[in-house]
C-alpha cells in the first residue's frame, strides 16, 4: 500500500518511513508503554538474552545486546523502567534479519531493563537490572 503511494509519487520515500508510535514513546510508565504497543500481557521467557554490564560507569552510554531464540520472533521492544519515558526502542525483524540488536542507551538511574519479544502473535518478556554509578574525573 505504502509502496504503491511512493511509486505513485503521493508520498516522498522519507514519509513512508515515518511510522513512529508516539503514544508508546510518550508513555510515562512501562505498563502504559507496553499497552500502547499491544503487549499488555507477557509471558517470561528464557529465550530472550539480555547481555549488558551489571554496573555501568556512566548512565549516558549503557551498552545492551539483545537476542531472542524464540522461534519466529518478529519484534523486540526495549523498556528502561525508571527512565522518564521508559520505551527506548523497538525493532521489527522481517524475513532476512535475525532477532538481534546491540545499542547504547541512556539511563537516568539504576533500573530494570525489560525486553519484550513478539513471536507468533504472543509476547514474551525478560528483565535485567543495570546499576548506574558515578565515575571519577579521568579516563
Amino acid at each position, binding site marked *: 500500500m505504502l509502496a504503491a503511494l511512493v511509486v505513485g509519487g503521493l508520498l516522498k520515500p522519507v514519509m513512508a518511513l515515518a511510522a513512529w508510535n508516539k503514544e508508546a514513546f510518550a508513555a510515562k510508565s512501562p505498563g502504559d508503554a507496553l499497552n500502547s504497543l499491544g503487549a499488555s500481557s507477557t509471558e517470561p521467557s528464557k529465550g530472550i538474552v539480555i*547481555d*549488558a*554490564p*551489571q*554496573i*555501568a*560507569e*556512566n*548512565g*549516558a*552510554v549503557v*551498552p545492551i*545486546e539483545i537476542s531472542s531464540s524464540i522461534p519466529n520472533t518478529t519484534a523486540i521492544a526495549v523498556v528502561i523502567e525508571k527512565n522518564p519515558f521508559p520505551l527506548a526502542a523497538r525493532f521489527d525483524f522481517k524475513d532476512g534479519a535475525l532477532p538481534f540488536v*546491540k*545499542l*547504547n542507551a541512556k*539511563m*537516568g*538511574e*539504576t533500573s530494570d531493563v525489560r525486553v519484550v519479544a513478539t513471536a507468533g502473535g504472543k509476547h514474551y518478556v525478560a528483565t535485567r537490572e543495570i*546499576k*548506574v*554509578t*558515578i*565515575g*571519577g*574525573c*579521568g*579516563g
Partner: protein
Amino acid sequence: MMRAITCGAVLALAAAPALAQSQFEKYQRMTAEGSPVELFELVGEDLWKKPQGPNNVSLEKCDLGKGPGVLRGAYAALPRYFKDADRVMDLETRLLHCMTTVQGRSPEEATKRLFGNADKPSEMEYLSAYVAAQSQGMKLAPGSTHPKEKESYELGKALFFHRAGAWDFSCASCHGEEDKRIRMSELPVLSTPKAARPVMATWPAYRVSNSQFKTMQWRINDCYRQMRMPEPVFGSEATVAMNMYLTTTAKGETYRGPGTKR
C-alpha cells in the same frame, strides 16, 4: 568530575569490589565495541587531505617524523625531537607547527579552537584520531636519544611529582598509589610501566561520558584544571614533557587506539 556527578546517578551498589571491577571491564569492552571512534578517523582523513591556509596545501606535506606525508607508525614514535623547530613535539604540537609553516596559517587562526565539544569536534581532534589510528599495531617508541628528548623526559617526570596550586596537588596525588579510586573510577599509577602502558596505548580517545573525542593535550589540560592550577599553554614544553614522560614510561606497548573511555 563535576560532569560525571551531574550526569551520573545513584546507586544501590551492594556488589563486592571484585565483581564491580569485572563489571566495569565488561562495560569498557562493550562500550568500546559500540564506539563511534571510526567516524572521527574518517573526518580526520578528509581534513588531512584538504588543502587549507594561504598556501592552499594539505597536511600531506607535513613531516610527522617519518618524512612528509608518512603516517604509518608516526604517532607511535612521538613525542620526538624535530630539527626544523629545534624542540621536542608531540602529535598536536607538530600538527600545529605544520598548519603554520606548511599551510601558512596564522598561529591565532590555527589555535582558535583546539578543543571541540560534543556538537562540534575540533580539527585537531579529528586529525589526532586519524593520524593515531595509522600507528595501530606499532610499538610505542618515543624519541630517547637527542639531549632535548632526555631533557623533556626529565622535566615531565619532575612535573609529575611537583606539588602546587590551590589544593597542593601533583599528578601523583591521584596517580601515585596502587589500588586507589576517585569515586568508582580506578586510578592508574602512571609512573609505573604496568599502568602507563594500557593508558598510553589507547589515547587519544572517545569519551562516552560526554560523547567527545579527546586528545592527549586535552587530557593533560583537564587534569591541571582539576588540580586547581592555571591553564597549561597548548603545545608548550611542559605539556609535551608530560606526554614524553608518560609515553616513555609506556614504551614498548603496542598501540591500539584511538581508544574508547568511560
